[in-house]
């Protein structure tokens, strides 16, 4: 399959043809604008293409879910974003959404219903696990076979929504050697970026949170730190740079791990 045979249909295109996709891929602002996370978006789209999932994106019609505004205490701004997104989603009759961002996932799933937006929302880790379980996605013995991989739990995926196993199942499906950090699952340590901290300098303290976390990740001696969140991706990557371990220890999103093993 050559690069240019990948399809990224938009809802507008599908609607013009009178079609409805199986699932809407919610790209998120980081997935659309952040250079590193754009690679994750592309990786996930490639997987969807290879597996033959009938999906679509909103393209330029997508707005921020409003999560950073709400967490920063700006409820007006949050609800403005949310309402206009709900209008778009409802206009297209969207039923099911998959997203590679735990913050979008949490907001769409838990906070849009109160504003009138009701959708089935899943995180891409769960989606990938389902594809594997259904046998639609085959990855055994791929590029990460036997390699030590550690998974960093995102707060908005784990504690916030109880998704702990799906990302781990995905890593195990790669035949990788999943090693856990000391603080994992319900006790997983935040990367430091949640609650709109991504958009400000940290308060004064002894240490940056991502440094504390990357030290723990390095202790596992894993060569890959797997993440499932754009903010965790930034924080972990910065941590690796700070420890001068670039090229030695890699930070990958789950979909990148899968794609490299397909």
């Amino acid at each position: 399959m050559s690069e240019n045979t990948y399809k990224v249909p938009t809802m507008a295109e599908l609607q013009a043809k009178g079609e409805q996709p199986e699932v809407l891929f919610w790209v998120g602002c980081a997935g659309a604008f952040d250079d590193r996370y754009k690679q994750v978006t592309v990786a996930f789209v490639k997987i969807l293409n290879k597996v033959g999932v009938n999906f679509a994106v909103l393209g330029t019609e997508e707005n921020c879910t409003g999560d950073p505004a709400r967490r920063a205490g700006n409820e007006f701004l949050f609800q403005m974003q949310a309402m206009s997104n709900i209008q778009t989603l409802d206009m297209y009759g969207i039923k099911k959404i998959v997203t590679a961002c735990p913050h979008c996932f949490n907001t769409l799933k838990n906070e849009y219903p109160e504003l009138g937006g009701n959708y089935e929302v899943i995180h891409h880790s769960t989606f990938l696990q389902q594809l594997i379980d259904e046998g639609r996605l085959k990855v055994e013995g791929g590029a990460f076979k036997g390699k030590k991989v550690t998974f960093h739990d995102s707060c908005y995926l784990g504690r916030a929504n109880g998704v702990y196993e799906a990302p781990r199942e995905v890593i195990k499906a790669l035949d990788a050697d999943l090693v856990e950090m000391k603080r994992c699952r319900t006790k997983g340590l935040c990367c430091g970026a949640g609650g709109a901290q991504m958009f400000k300098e940290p308060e004064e303290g002894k240490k940056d949170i991502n440094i504390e976390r990357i030290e723990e990740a390095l202790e596992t001696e894993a060569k890959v730190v797997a993440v499932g969140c754009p903010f965790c991706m930034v924080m972990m990557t910065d941590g690796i740079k700070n420890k001068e371990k670039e090229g030695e220890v890699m930070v990958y999103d789950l979909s990148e791990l899968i794609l490299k093993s397909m």
Partner: protein
Amino acid sequence: MSYLPQILFLACLAAAGFFIYRRVNLIKRTILIGKDTGPMGQKGERLKTMLLVAFGQGKMFSKPLVGLMHFIIYAGFLIINIEVLEIILDGILGEHRLFAPLLGSTLYSALINFFEFLAVGVLVVCVVFLARRNVLNLSRFKRWEMKKWPTLDANLILVFEIILMAAFLTMNATDSILQTRDVPHYPPVGAFVFSQFLIPLFDGMGTEALVALERGAWWFHILGILAFAIYVTYSKHLHIALAFPNTYFSNLKPKGHMENMPTITNEVKIALGLMNPNDAPPADTNMTFGAKDINDLTWKQLMDAYSCTECGRCTAQCPASQTGKHLSPRAIMMETRDRLEDVGKELQKGKSVEEALNNGKTLFGDFITKEEIMACTTCNACVEACPVNISPLSIILDVRRFITMEQADTPSSWNAMFGNLENNMAPWKFSPSDRFNWADKLKD
């Protein structure tokens, strides 16, 4: 003359009852300063949570050894209450070991033996806990918010319990000796499993002195329990009662969910042309966005503050606390409670709620600082860790809403982010028309 002890006892009981009633009433009044939460529903699920988390101490066992030790104190506390009931009835009726003839001596001894077993368990655990707090250098017991009173409070409770249990065992030991000396008033029920080892200590004493010691221990034990019951209402130990309602009313939604603000929803709908301004319920012009003081929080958030055990499990998990930021979720709860106590003092002077709140202080500003609120990553580690399902995060977020919406006192980088969201519908400065550019190299 023979009625004097009974009268005295009743007087003590009534006095304790009065003080506890007055104090509980005050606590209730301060909690009800909080806003209504709206209907909560889900009774079955709530009951299950309470049974699991409070009654079954489910979350305590994430540290198995400490969980077990705490369970011993907890079970001891619950079960020894049966014995307290007997003591109270004895005191009122001028009887001694009222339950002995009712239960028969075999069953009665078995019961008291069981109580002694628990008493010794409680005693041992309290000694271990005292050592753990004061000798071992556990950072969560030594942080900045654990000032004089919280540390003293924790130690006092443990010492109290040790003394109470020692009095109980002394009472039983002297009682067993008196039984063998045929002193009236001490029906023969035999020696007890643990206190028998104390018998040699007292065996040499004369009967009169023994009676005095036994009575002394009896009075000390029961007065101690009454005093303890009053003390509890002023202490972090209030959790022994409030853990139950607090877990019953705990948040059952996914932890990532943030409370909606329906008043804003109406305004946003009007702004977007989705609602006719005439259809919207009249906006309350006095309402504050977010929380500046305790009357902006819900009664549940205020009950959280009284339920906090100051254990610091939240703070030990908090990423901000662990990296030296000036934020401790435990401190958020303690500060909220301090403000409640502060307002409670005013209420006690006979002031109305409104006057009491207007004493020149507010929760945010005088108790909780901006630095604390700004350091939170909303990671929910504190909520997850709390053994009585408290959410420090919900208070933090409500205060943050106040800082942002009422004071517009946010860091400039957040203001820039807000501006980007408003103009570009993304938190960064990118043109909305570029949002789909990522797909360029994929599309044909």
